[in-house]
């Protein structure tokens, strides 16, 4: 594919993404304004109703005291009573007691204005209770909602851009490049065997046009071949062949046009489809990132200390995924279709089961099964495959889907329909993808004999450890505990930075320094399991950490299976490190930072040793 083609694809994909983002965003904004018109008056009425109840009750209390004969100025403990009421009712900002002349007798704040509730005894106005309603909660909620709608639009726009880019590159531009190559070949005298393009679309029509143009030449060549056959038939002594060859030599290339290429089984196409199917599965799987840890915390388990509640599911998932993936690599070629299908089916059913699970132990088991299902699927789809040798876009798309699209969509779904429904939806999607996997022509997908199959990569394990500790445990248990979208967005901030770092291939010391700096920044920002809301420093820390971790991942140096196994092991270790740090009252990321350092250095030593042996 030529550079202008690639640039054109990127621009068109970006425009399509923008169109979809604007459409979804504008649609959401219109629906929000409509909903505000419908719902806010009712909400305001409810708040007003509550204020009325409280104001009236307080006025009644004052009236009762006056009825007992206590003078207004001699009421004891009114200020404490008012303070208790204000602190206990969030819809009230302040209370004041004023006499009929307007003089303030007691007040919880200065210059209290608002609703007045008269205190009347014996038909005479004795005082007024002034109640100042708190600023409505609507502003904050609507602001948060706008952010969620914007995130929906951006993420779906990104997904649309990726889909469009994929189709343009793999179909339109690849077809254009093939047609150009064929036409230039013919103009240089290289005549291809005729292929009969099948399907529909502009590319197929253009290739058919190419075939149509070759038809007259084919007719001429067939005529020539008939004549040649006749001559050869009467050439009993071979004397004619000697005369024939000089005549045929100048048109030898053109004679190939009557040969028809064999039935084309699109091997790279199917291998590529399997890769993209795995990306889709990982993306759906990643939708659970904002929920798993906080879902586990809410289930509670008396058999293990509190510190381990959020991390155990990820540890179980990581270990199960590694074991299942290792086992699945030994499966014979013919068993792959069913392995991928059952892997996705198991993962999907485990996700869906979370809808009904209330027990921690069962949830833990379901996550282990989900991890095992993912491990089997990834092994079946990727075994022996080099990470980016055939599809340079694949690792980038994988990071984008795993760390950006999946978590944000999961966070949005969690906010929209709740965690349990989000688990159920993701489960159904995984099962649907399982059935899609049956459409791949599996006998054409094989491990390549030359594929490097190192089982371990330290730097990737380090990246996994950082991701496991921060994105999978700390963020969903802290700022994302009750704000799934915040969790998804924070993970996406790191994921976007990692995706940017991936093609830049920064040197490993730079990546390591960035990862450690990111963790330090996150610790400084107060990221912990008890931090309620993320701040700008947390987001920046996530981005720096993501850039460092993304730089440590070198997909061109490993197979997909190595990538999966190493990061899986790192995730399990990283998740566990947060719990160990909690048990020893250490800063949450202290052990994770050490892990990242040690794993990266160990990985570098291993790489140097391997290079030395190879040399």
């Amino acid at each position, binding site marked *: 594919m030529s550079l202008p083609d690639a640039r054109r694809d990127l621009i*068109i994909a970006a425009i399509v993404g923008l169109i*979809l983002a604007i*459409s*979804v965003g504008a*649609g*959401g904004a*219109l*629906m929000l304004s*409509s909903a505000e018109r419908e*719902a806010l008056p009712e*909400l305001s009425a*409810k*708040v007003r109703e*509550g204020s009325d*109840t*409280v104001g009236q*009750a307080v006025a009644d209390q004052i009236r009762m005291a006056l009825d007992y004969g206590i003078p207004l100025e001699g009421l004891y403990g009114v200020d404490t009573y008012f303070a208790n009421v204000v602190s*206990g009712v*969030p819809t009230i900002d302040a209370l004041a007691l004023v006499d009929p002349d307007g003089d303030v007798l007691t007040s919880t704040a200065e210059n209290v204005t608002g609703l007045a509730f008269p205190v009347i005894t014996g038909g005479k106005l004795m005082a007024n209770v002034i109640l100042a309603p708190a600023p409505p909660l*609507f502003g904050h909620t609507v602001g948060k*909602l706008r952010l*969620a*709608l914007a995130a929906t639009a951006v993420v*779906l726009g990104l997904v649309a851009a990726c*889909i*469009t880019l994929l*189709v*343009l590159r793999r*179909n*339109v531009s690849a*077809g254009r490049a093939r*047609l*150009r190559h064929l*036409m230039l070949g*013919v*103009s240089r005298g290289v*005549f291809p065997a005729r292929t009969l393009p099948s*399907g529909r*679309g*502009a*590319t197929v*029509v*253009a290739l058919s*046009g190419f075939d*149509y*143009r070759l038809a007259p*030449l084919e007719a001429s060549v067939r*005529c*020539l071949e008939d004549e040649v056959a006749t*001559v050869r038939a*009467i050439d009993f002594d071979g004397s004619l062949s000697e*005369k*024939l060859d000089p*005549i*045929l030599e*100048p*048109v030898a290339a*053109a004679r190939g046009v009557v040969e028809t290429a064999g039935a084309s089984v699109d091997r790279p196409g199917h291998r590529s489809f399997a890769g993209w199917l795995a990306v889709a599965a990982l993306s759906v799987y990643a939708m659970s990132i904002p929920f798993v840890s906080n879902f586990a915390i809410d289930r509670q388990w008396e058999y293990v200390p509190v510190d381990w509640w959020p991390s155990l599911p990820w540890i179980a998932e990581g270990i199960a995924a590694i074991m299942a993936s290792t086992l699945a690599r030994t499966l014979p070629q013919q068993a792959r279709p069913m392995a991928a299908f059952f892997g996705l089916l198991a993962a999907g059913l485990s996700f869906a089961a979370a809808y009904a699970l209330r027990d921690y132990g069962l949830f833990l088991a379901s996550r282990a099964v989900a991890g095992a299902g993912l491990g089997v699927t990834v092994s079946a789809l990727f075994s022996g495959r080099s990470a980016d040798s055939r599809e340079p876009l694949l690792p980038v798309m994988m990071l984008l889907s795993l760390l950006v699209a999946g978590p944000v969509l999961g966070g949005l779904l969690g*906010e*929209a329909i709740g965690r349990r429904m989000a688990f159920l939806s993701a489960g159904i999607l995984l099962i649907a993808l399982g059935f899609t996997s049956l459409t791949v022509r599996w006998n054409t997908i094989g491990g390549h004999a030359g594929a490097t199959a190192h089982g371990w990569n330290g730097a990737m394990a380090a990246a996994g450890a950082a991701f496991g500790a921060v994105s999978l445990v700390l963020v969903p248990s802290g700022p994302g505990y009750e704000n799934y979208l915040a969790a998804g967005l924070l993970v996406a901030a790191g994921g976007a930075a990692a995706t940017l770092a991936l093609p830049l291939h920064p040197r490993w010391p730079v990546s390591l320094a960035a990862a450690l700096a990111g963790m330090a920044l996150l610790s400084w920002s107060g990221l912990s399991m008890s931090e309620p809301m993320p701040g700008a420093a947390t987001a920046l820390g996530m981005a720096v950490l993501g850039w460092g971790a993304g730089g440590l991942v070198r997909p061109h140096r490993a197979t997909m299976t190595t990538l999966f196994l190493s990061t899986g092991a790192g995730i399990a270790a990283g998740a566990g490190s947060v719990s160990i740090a909690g048990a020893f009252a250490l800063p949450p990321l202290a052990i994770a930072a050490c892990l990242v350092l040690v794993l990266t250095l160990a990985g570098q030593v291993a790489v140097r040793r391997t290079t030395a042996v190879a040399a």
Partner: protein
Amino acid sequence: MSPAVRTIFALSVLTLVGITLSVLLINEALDRLRVRAVESNIDFILTELRDSVEASVSLGLLLPEIHVAQDLIERARLGNQEILAVEIFDPSGVSVYNTDRGSIGERVTDDWLEAIRLRDDSRRWRLEQLDTVVVGEEIRNDFGEPVGHLAVTLAGAAHGDGLVGAVATRFAVVAAAGVLIVALLSALMFHIATRDLRMVARQLYGQEPLGGPSAEPGTLAAAAVAMCAAIDETIVEVDLAAEKVRALDQDEEIAAEDVHEPA
């Protein structure tokens, strides 16, 4: 179905999903806001009821002896339409006072006891069920020991008027418009992306003359011009070769006749 049509269909579905997701987000957030507003209103009532019961407990009365509590919870229930039920139960979960008098003496559900067990350090606990929200508070004696619980059952999110229902027509219009806009514009973008392919296809099929101003070096059109010229040239060469071969054949036939005739 061509890849472009399939992609446009996928993008349309994605738009529909996006707008639906937006509506669900809005519905959930505003419903939650409504429940929070109601809960805020209930806070005061709950605190007043608890204070009243605890005042009686401070006087040395046991929970079953505070008969005024039944009157208090019934008045609270009548005073607020959002309250579906009010109940006071002892630490073992047996209902002592209840606005549904038939339920007095029965045990509360296990979900309530679980919510009490899992509450944080505060006295307040909360439980969301399918269409109700239960907000409860612990009743303590002067020594801080729990002597029972007060629970108020409120209409939950599903009890609301249903925002989705109220804005359904607008949603249908917005979703249809969004899908249409995305489908049309993405079709236009694919049209632009494949313009050169379609043009060269027309040229190859002879529906348009070859070349033209678009046939700049490096373009498909230029490659098509070069290819067609090469094909025409090759056809001439092949036809010439065929004629020569035919001539060989004829020469051979003449030679054969010459050999046979003398015989």
